[in-house]
């Protein structure tokens, strides 16, 4: 009926390490935000490791990106498919992250975050088979992931540009941030996959898949409402 994506026992062996990594980031998360801000505004020249860290942290703690990823891999069973789809997402957000920051393109953060919310609604609806049922066709899922990946990248670019950090070593820092984002995504993906492949062993996965995708849609709508209100109120 299904094939486990990863061998859970193998992953379990690394779980303590992963948990330790996660908590090392979140234990002091409250202070880190101010510290990060101070660091970014005060930084001069290339600082590869800090930017790697900031990128990874942004992804691991970015629930909007994670919800979208959850939607994307929800019905993906084969490692190859997961790799392909995540690569499309990575390609999309890396392109606009690099392009956006290097060309100093500022997109309104509220609008971009609202579109990121929309991407979650889209994926939830897609997972319910909404397009096939109501539109009579399935929009190209890879193209959709790539397209929404582009928007997620503009979101990342806008966040990074808010800090107005030093232009010295911009390219190095930007690439480090981008690689950090991918590392964070990889780490988060391992957790999501671990949980979802365990859940797939149980019947409840199938009985609750409609509910889960409904909740995914709802969460996306909340994000949209939250960001659009911010756009019109600000």
């Amino acid at each position, binding site marked *: 009926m299904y094939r486990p994506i990863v061998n859970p026992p193998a992953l379990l062996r690394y779980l303590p390490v992963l948990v330790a990594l996660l908590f090392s980031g979140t234990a002091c998360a409250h202070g880190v935000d101010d510290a990060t801000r101070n660091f970014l505004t005060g930084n001069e020249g290339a600082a590869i490791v800090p930017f790697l860290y900031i990128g990874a942290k942004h992804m691991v703690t970015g629930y909007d990106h994670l919800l979208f990823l959850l939607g994307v891999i929800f*019905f993906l069973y084969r490692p190859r498919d997961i790799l392909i789809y995540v690569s499309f997402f990575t390609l999309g957000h890396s392109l606009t992250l690099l392009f956006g920051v290097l060309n100093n393109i500022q997109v309104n953060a509220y609008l971009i975050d609202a579109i990121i919310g929309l991407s979650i609604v889209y994926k939830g609806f897609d997972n319910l088979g909404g397009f096939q049922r109501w539109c009579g066709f399935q929009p190209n899922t890879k193209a959709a992931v790539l397209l929404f990946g582009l928007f997620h990248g503009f979101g990342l670019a806008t966040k990074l540009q808010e800090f107005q950090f030093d232009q010295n070593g911009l390219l190095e820092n930007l690439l480090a941030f981008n690689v950090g984002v991918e590392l964070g995504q990889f780490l988060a993906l391992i957790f999501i996959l671990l949980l979802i492949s365990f859940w797939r062993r149980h019947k409840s996965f199938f009985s609750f898949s*409609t509910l889960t*995708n409904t*909740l995914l849609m709802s969460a996306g709508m909340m994000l949209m409402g939250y960001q659009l209100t911010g756009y019109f109120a600000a």
Partner: protein
Amino acid sequence: MNETTTHVQSSQTLLKSTFAAALLAAMVLVTIILPAEYNIDPTGIGQRIGLTKLANVTVVPPVQTEMVAIDNTALSQPAEQRSDSVTIEIPGGKGLEYKFQLGKHAELDYEWTTGGVPIYFDFHGEPQGDTTGYFKSFSISTANQMQGSLLTPFAGSHGWYWRNDSPIPVTITLKTSGHYEIIGLKK
């Protein structure tokens, strides 16, 4: 090759799911997210469960860096540790000041609230013996409450200027503790 094993739901399930998702999102947005994030609270639930507090407070921690040339340390003798509570009514369209006399590097713990209405304030200090009209602002903002601790940068009078821009009187409850003398109201 069917790479996404999508489960196409019936029209009825889709309709139900979409409607339920929208309803849940609308409810959470209106009662929780918007009150907490933007102080937009059409139902009043945010206020009742205390979430609007999150959006109202924009308090900047007091700045304690700048030193002033006038430094009358000799004049400031340490006062007794005390605690006070006072209610101050600010008439509509008026502003007033409430001040405390403190020594240099003295600590003032404070907490004030309007009970809900945001009010413009300037939390500042004036060095003792200064005749130039100099004052240092620690925080200027609009909030319905503020609490914290001030370490005075110089000896002198420290306190708040509140300005009530609404036509309705606002009552402020101010609680303080520390080593100080009350100067009180200044119009």
